[in-house]
């Protein structure tokens, strides 16, 4: 199927639970927005960036439009989109400025790709990537198998019928860090020394706990639309799509259940002769630029007794990252809320 998407690049401000606002660069979806109205999106960058969901065989035409950064009108940085992990990509569409093209303010460029393999990928800007990634130009990307069909359980899979990757619900667990000192310097037109990078916030889907499990209000989280709350019925299979676009390794764990690792970097763990190398883990250890697909079965600890929803905690075993600028609890924490079987209707999109 031909897929046309238009993504704008601009800046914006995000919230952390301590009431502080942080300057970001980022992406916002402007697909279908009339040309005369696209500049209404100036300053409306989102963290995490809009997730992209494709199916193997889609002909994806993604147009990037640079609408400028109103907080930093002096900044005339070009931007790009790099599809991280797409095999055999050609340099022209790879979004690396040094060997191809970048998009200056007021211009468009269309990236083409026909996804070849299912899995969890990511995308980000590759112009001066240390700055633009830290500033928030990062998002997750799902490629579904060609036979994906959510109406049939054996075809609602991460990697295709017969691969043992069936799931009932799926969630982005998109990991990054934020060094508020660096964001502040950039808002104030100063150059940071990147070797002094020292994050003060650790984020899931662009938010720090307890924002990870709450809903946006008129004053807060308007540019962070993605909760990280995992809601599921007991007995269901839940697929967590971990992506790390921070600069640190992270160690996510979810006591009360066990992860089956069914994908790493958009590849099933398979040997050269098709050997199944999938395995079980309590901690997902993930380095920058990696993705991990983990499925767990939602436990039914109360066996029909009262007390729902049952809550499990998802958090970073690098326990120093469960902080919000030094305040506990915060940071890379979220929750699983378990409901009695049949309570929640089927998911129609990730993270519902």
């Amino acid at each position: 199927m031909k897929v046309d998407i238009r993504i704008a690049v601009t800046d914006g401000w995000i919230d952390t639970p301590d009431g502080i606002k942080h300057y970001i660069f980022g992406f916002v979806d402007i697909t279908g927005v009339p040309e005369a109205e696209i500049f209404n999106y100036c300053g409306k960058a989102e963290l995490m960036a809009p997730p992209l969901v494709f199916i193997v065989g889609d002909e994806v035409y993604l147009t990037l439009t640079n609408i400028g950064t109103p907080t930093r009108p002096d900044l005339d940085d070009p931007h790009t989109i790099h599809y991280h992990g797409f095999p055999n990509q050609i340099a022209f569409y790879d979004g690396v400025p040094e060997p191809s093209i970048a998009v200056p303010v007021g211009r468009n460029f269309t990236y083409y790709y026909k996804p070849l393999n299912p899995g969890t990928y990511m995308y980000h800007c590759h112009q001066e990537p240390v700055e633009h990634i830290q500033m928030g130009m990062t998002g997750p990307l799902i490629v579904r198998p060609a036979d994906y069909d959510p109406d049939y359980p054996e075809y609602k899979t991460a990697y295709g019928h017969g691969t043992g990757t069936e799931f009932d619900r799926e969630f982005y667990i998109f990991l990054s860090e934020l060094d508020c000192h660096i964001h502040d310097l950039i808002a104030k037109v100063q150059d940071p020394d990147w070797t002094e990078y020292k994050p003060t916030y650790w984020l899931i889907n662009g938010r720090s706990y307890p924002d990870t499990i709450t809903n946006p209000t008129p004053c807060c989280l308007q540019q962070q639309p993605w909760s990280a709350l995992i809601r599921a019925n007991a007995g269901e299979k839940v697929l967590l799509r971990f992506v790390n676009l921070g600069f640190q390794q992270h160690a996510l764990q979810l006591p009360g259940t066990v992860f089956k690792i069914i994908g790493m970097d958009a590849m099933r763990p398979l040997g050269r002769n098709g050997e199944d190398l999938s395995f079980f883990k309590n901690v997902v250890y993930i380095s920058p630029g990696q993705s991990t697909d983990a499925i767990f079965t939602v436990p039914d600890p109360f066996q029909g007794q009262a007390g729902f929803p049952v809550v499990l905690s998802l958090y970073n075993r690098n326990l120093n990252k469960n902080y919000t600028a030094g305040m506990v609890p915060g940071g890379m924490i979220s929750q699983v809320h378990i409901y009695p079987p049949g309570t929640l209707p089927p998911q129609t999109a990730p993270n519902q």
Partner: protein
Amino acid sequence: MPTINLWATDGYISTPGGKSIYIWGFTDQEGGSAQLPGPTIIIKEEQPPAETVFDINLTNNLNEPVSLTFPGQKNVKVNGQRVQPQYNNGELVSLTNYALPGETITYSVTTSSPGTFLYESGTNPFKQVQMGLYGAIIVRPCDYEPHETGLCTAYGTGTGTEFDREYLLVLSEVDPAFHQAVKQGRDYDTRQFKPRYWMINGRCAPDTMLPDYTPQLPNQPYGAMILMEPGEKVLLRYAGAGIQNHPLHPHGHHTRLVGLDGRLLQNINNGEVNDLSYERFTVLAAAGQTCDQIYTWAGLGFDPATNPIPTTIPNLRNMSIGHLGWTLWSGSPYLGHKGELPSGMVSYNNAGEEYFMLHSHAELEITNWGAYPGGLMTMIAVYPPGTLGFNQGMLPTSL
């Protein structure tokens, strides 16, 4: 029995910003300057059951004891005796037998497996390895024959590790304050360690993309630019010589990890072969670890006559091309073609080759003391078929 002579001495390396950093390191030239990393040692294994043994004569021209450890090798001896930790009045002074200043010591090493390994100082290693006393060892399988189908492998015929070209990438990080303290004989508090430079083969980007033995980098002889043609199997050998872990991401394709720490990723149970290799788009090259991987890139079959790209090339004067007036781009989306670039743009493109970045995704590591581009980054250059020399990207069979 191969014999290698190494001298531990000092010297200077350069950063792309023009700074000079004092190092300790190894050289295989008597009276030479230290180089970073140390000379690559390449050994071809003997046909089993014969064991493969090589000797290293280490002469210490530094002012404190220096030693060599050989992680992953089976048997290391000095004067016929297995090496031992060294104590002085009950206090550990070295993880292994060492050479005193001015002394020469001979290590006799028995290999354990084909693959990629490190050698490094085992004496005050936090200081000496940071200063540069490390290098890589490549052990070839006994049936290795360069360019011979089925025999040009990392781990031996039938192991699925055939390659067409190979590149060794030794990874490290440098805190220049540490090096300055050692140069001036001052103490250095290891808790203050804060790297400002990240390196492949002792070079920071963009120097990583300069050729081997480039004259302006006399003590950093090894380049890290990866040249290949489409569809070729490229063996990438990562060796983590620093104390940090680095997540390395090659654009353009996944790599298949075929060997870790100089061991083939394979189990054999009751004669049944279980291949344990796997593909990743980002490999965490951990401290002290080596990762042998096969990379390939075949493109998507676009060509201007029969299969043009499905989008319009924009007017390039409206776009941003390259970085600060230079580009690696040919001006064309097609491999082997060149297009018109805006005037005033300097292109380093030779033959319409396509460039894919290979870099640490801990992005602060692709800066030189905070300035992008730099650090632990290089490019994979895919040249049109038939344009690269036969021996491009082939290390010697043995030394």
